[in-house]
């Protein structure tokens, strides 16, 4: 079953064009959305979640059309733009108490378990939490309503290596529980640890969307490098000196 289908996505900004982006994602898999800064990852994720309005293209989530069935879809998915950066001076328990009312499937017991597992103190405010803990709080909110698909924008950016490793372990744990995760990153080593598939964007265009293992082996044969980082550098590296000379 496909949890996400993006077809012909196009979004024009004054100085950026995201064009003809199509990919899909199967249930129970983790997909990494990769690309350099400014490649169009955030625009793609925000389009999927109806935060920006694409000029063209269609988006289906869990078999339902976005934005036509937006409310229904949002009951079943979670979106986090990295760490929680809202209501930074409100206690976590206040944010939870308000948030839970909106979800039909909110599960207090699951919420309590994640809170314990993530060592979150609900008397603290987001301002008192580290970046990593705020990402975990964001995940806790998404998971407590039994989200089947998590969409995360740069969740590992700004985290120390230990927090990043913990978060990636969490992704693998969630995958075992049947949760699909689509997350954007430009930290390619994160993907090699926990992604099944990758969707690679460059300058607003889709380079590929396929299983990670296949992509790595195909590029290794072509001599583009053995790791995602080497492949990205091989595909996209521009000489600053040449650009300046032009």
């Amino acid at each position, binding site marked *: 079953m496909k949890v996400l289908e993006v077809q012909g996505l196009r979004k024009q900004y004054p100085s950026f064009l995201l064009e003809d982006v199509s990919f899909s994602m199967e249930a129970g898999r983790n997909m990494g959305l990769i690309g350099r800064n400014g490649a169009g990852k955030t625009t793609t994720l*925000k389009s999927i*979640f109806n*935060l*920006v*309005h694409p000029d063209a293209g269609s988006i289906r989530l869990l078999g339902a059309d976005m934005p036509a069935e*937006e*409310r*229904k*879809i*949002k*009951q079943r998915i979670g*979106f986090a*733009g990295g760490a929680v*950066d*809202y*209501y*930074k*001076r*409100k206690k976590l328990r*206040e*944010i939870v*108490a*308000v*948030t839970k*009312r*909106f*979800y039909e499937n909110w599960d207090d017991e699951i919420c309590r378990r994640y809170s314990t597992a993530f060592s979150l103190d609900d008397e603290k405010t987001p301002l008192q939490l580290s970046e990593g803990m705020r990402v975990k709080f964001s995940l806790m909110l998404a998971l407590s309503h039994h989200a089947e698909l998590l969409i995360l924008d740069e969740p590992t950016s700004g985290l120390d290596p230990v927090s990043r490793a913990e978060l990636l372990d969490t992704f693998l744990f969630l995958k075992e529980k049947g949760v699909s995760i689509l997350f954007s990153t430009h930290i390619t080593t994160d993907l090699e640890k926990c992604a099944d598939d990758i969707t690679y964007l460059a300058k607003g265009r889709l380079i590929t969307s396929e299983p990670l293992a296949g992509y790595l082996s195909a590029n290794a044969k072509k001599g583009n490098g053995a790791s995602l980082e080497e492949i990205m550098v091989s595909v996209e590296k521009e000489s600053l000196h040449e650009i300046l000379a032009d």
Partner: protein
Amino acid sequence: MKYLLIKELRLAASPLSYIFLVASLMTLLPGYPILMSAFFICFGIFHSFQSAREANDTLYTVLLPVKKRDFVRAKFIFTCLIQAAGFVLCAALTVLRMTLLADAGPYVSNALMNATPYYLTFVLLIFTAFNVLFVGGFFKTGYKIGIPFLIFGIAAFLLIVPAEILPHIPGLAFLHTPSGERLGLQLILLLGAAVIWGISTVLACRKAEERFEKIDL
């Protein structure tokens, strides 16, 4: 909508929105342009928009399973609730001034506007200006509050000054006599202002919903 209102009250609202309701007490001040009470009540609501913006309230809300238009509607309803509370306080104090305090010296010799239904009429018109110009203006962008509030401030000034001048025009002094004269006419004016407030707010809300729906967040 109920849950969005709870969200407004528990997470998004600034305490200043409630504290500034105290400005209703200005209704009792002699020798003071008492319509400033309406301006300060609106200023208190402005603080909620400001603190909500700083707290990324918009992003939090649109990630919830709600429609973007519900977010707009909840902001308007919150605004109207505060205004209704402010109006009730102003109205109660106006009744106090027109009855028990009608013969009080400072009010009898008051050069500026006394509290009458005419005063409450302009309170509602200032609220209307706030809803249309500030709240409606805010939803053009979803984050800019300075210019919409400046425009509202100018509009409020343009309402307060003529409202203070009008009772000094020969034949219109009845508008601010402490005990109230020609109350029937004044109450009709007040009712008209209430209708204008209600209709303008609904229209401003609809327009804001359309605008906000088109914004990329």
